């Protein structure tokens, strides 16, 4: 069956290793990625004409970045690479593609590997839509991809490993930091350390950033609740409640915020994959076996899009998904390679679980979010309107609520508000998080320029 067409969506760590594994077996997969160059999020490449070294861009990760970029570049004429191309919909075994100018294409697949990565998870606070507030990932992209800082005096608020990493990268680039405001109690992070020994190198890096930032006098508070961003048309202050319950105000001209990342699962949803609620991730994820087989024949899952376990594990699961695909097509594969990747995947999963427990999602913040805070930044629906919809209209789950008040119906398809909508719904209705369901994916998974044109012309 060597003539079968395998398509990989995503050219990050997972997609790259999947492509490499298929090419090694003699296949020529199609690789589609929305980004203009391969690398994915963590190893995102700067545009042509930029000159910073890999060391400067990726720090401790420079070696891995170089190896991953080289691996992809070596595949040049052995894959059908479609950069700058988004997969926006699916229909049976066909994928709908659009390039930047809105030019459309449809390609069929016999097997499909989804390696679509993750996006920041957000908890809204009053003023979070104001110019100057960005995701932690966005703040990092500004620096890595554009050699810019999001502001001259940046406050970072949230939880998770990216909080300290981005702070470190900003300070190293000469940025002023108004402070690092962690919603997790320090004791909780320290209690997580022994289990994180599953990956001593990553744990050591985390501790290094922390110690370096402390040594450089960056203000750090733990166990805080962000209350609001203030300013006239742009951010001028961050107000938060500290662990003693006092309201405190910090001057800043930009805020980077985020709470770990969440899997991009919209395409798996369109393809009809079964989902299950993952309590630790606090998210509905497509069901998969250890090799990344989804519930749908011929559809495989890899990388952070399947379950957030970091870049190293993404490489392993990319290879595994490709091996599963070869196995299912009756093609030979190296069992030793598979066993090695399986081991790496299991180690990575253990470390990811420990990280989740050390930096838990701050469910408690939702109890105190004011009704006036915007929940959905696309449709501009407030937390209060959403709560009232749940209480008064008998919407027992998030898709009903969406139909009533448009939360999650906007252009981002709930990427920015979905996690919050589910938690607010669970709290308001007094039920378990899993009981309020999940926002269903819809095509197009991201807006097409042409569709927006019509929308605006109406």
């Amino acid at each position, binding site marked *: 069956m060597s003539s079968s067409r395998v398509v990989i969506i995503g050219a990050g760590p997972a997609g790259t290793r999947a492509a490499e594994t298929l090419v090694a077996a003699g296949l020529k997969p199609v690789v589609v990625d929305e980004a203009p160059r391969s690398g994915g999020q963590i190893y995102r490449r700067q545009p042509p004409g930029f000159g*910073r070294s890999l060391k400067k861009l990726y720090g401790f990760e420079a070696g891995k970045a170089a190896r991953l970029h080289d691996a992809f570049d070596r595949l040049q004429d052995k894959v059908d690479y479609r950069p700058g191309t988004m997969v926006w919909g699916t229909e049976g075994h066909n994928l709908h593609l659009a390039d930047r100018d809105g030019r459309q294409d449809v390609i069929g697949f016999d097997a499909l590997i989804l390696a679509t990565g993750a996006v920041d998870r957000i908890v809204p606070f009053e003023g979070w839509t104001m110019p100057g*507030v960005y995701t932690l990932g966005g703040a990092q992209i500004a620096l890595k991809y554009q050699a810019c800082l999001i502001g001259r005096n940046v406050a970072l608020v949230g939880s998770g490993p990216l909080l300290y990493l981005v702070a470190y990268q900003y300070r190293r680039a000469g940025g002023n930091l108004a402070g690092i405001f962690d919603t997790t109690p320090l004791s909780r992070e320290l209690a997580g350390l022994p289990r994180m020994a599953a990956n001593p190198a990553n744990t050591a890096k985390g501790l290094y950033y922390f110690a370096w930032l402390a040594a450089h006098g960056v203000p750090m508070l733990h166990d805080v609740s962000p209350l609001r961003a203030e300013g006239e048309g742009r951010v001028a202050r961050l107000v938060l409640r500290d662990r003693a319950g006092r309201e405190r105000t910090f001057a800043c001209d930009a805020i980077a915020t985020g709470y770990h990342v969440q899997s991009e699962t919209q395409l798996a949803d369109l393809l009809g994959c079964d989902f299950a609620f993952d309590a630790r991730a606090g998210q509905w994820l497509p069901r998969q076996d250890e090799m990344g087989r989804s519930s749908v024949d011929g559809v495989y899952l890899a990388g952070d899009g399947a379950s957030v376990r970091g870049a190293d594990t993404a490489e392993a699961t990319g290879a595994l998904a490709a091996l599963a695909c070869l196995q299912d097509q009756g093609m030979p594969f190296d069992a030793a390679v598979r066993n090695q990747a399986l081991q790496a995947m299991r180690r990575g999963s253990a470390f990811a679980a420990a990280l989740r427990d050390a930096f838990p999602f701050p469910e408690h913040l939702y109890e105190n979010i004011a009704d006036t805070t915007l929940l959905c930044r696309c449709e501009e629906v407030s937390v209060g309107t959403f709560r009232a919809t749940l209480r008064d209209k008998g919407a027992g789950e998030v898709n009903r609520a969406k139909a009533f008040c448009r939360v999650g119906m906007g252009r*981002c398809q709930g990427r920015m508000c979905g996690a919050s909508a589910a938690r607010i719904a669970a709290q308001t209705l007094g039920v378990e998080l899993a009981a309020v369901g999940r926002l269903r994916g819809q095509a197009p998974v991201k807006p097409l320029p042409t569709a927006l044109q019509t929308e605006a012309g109406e």
Partner: protein
Amino acid sequence: MDEQSLFLRVAEQDREIVPFFVNGRPATALSGDTVLTALLTHDHEVRLSEILEQPRAGFCLMGACQDCWIWTEDGKRVRACSTMIEPDMRLRTRSPFNGARPE
């Protein structure tokens, strides 16, 4: 870089200069800038939200939030964080269709 800019360049500043227009006024960017970077190194907003008409300046920078769609003068839509600036691009931060506000 203007005082009122949101973004601050910290490296890679000897790239080629790219002239463009925003709301009819000439401005400059650097080759390799996204449209979002080109705008936010001069100003602190790129568009108004559709309903409350509040200023927005993007959020995720990775094509996820969709809060950075702006216009070209000929009515095309561009997602500012994932579109590269091009010489003589003519950008609008307000809709050329409905809801257009005086500049």
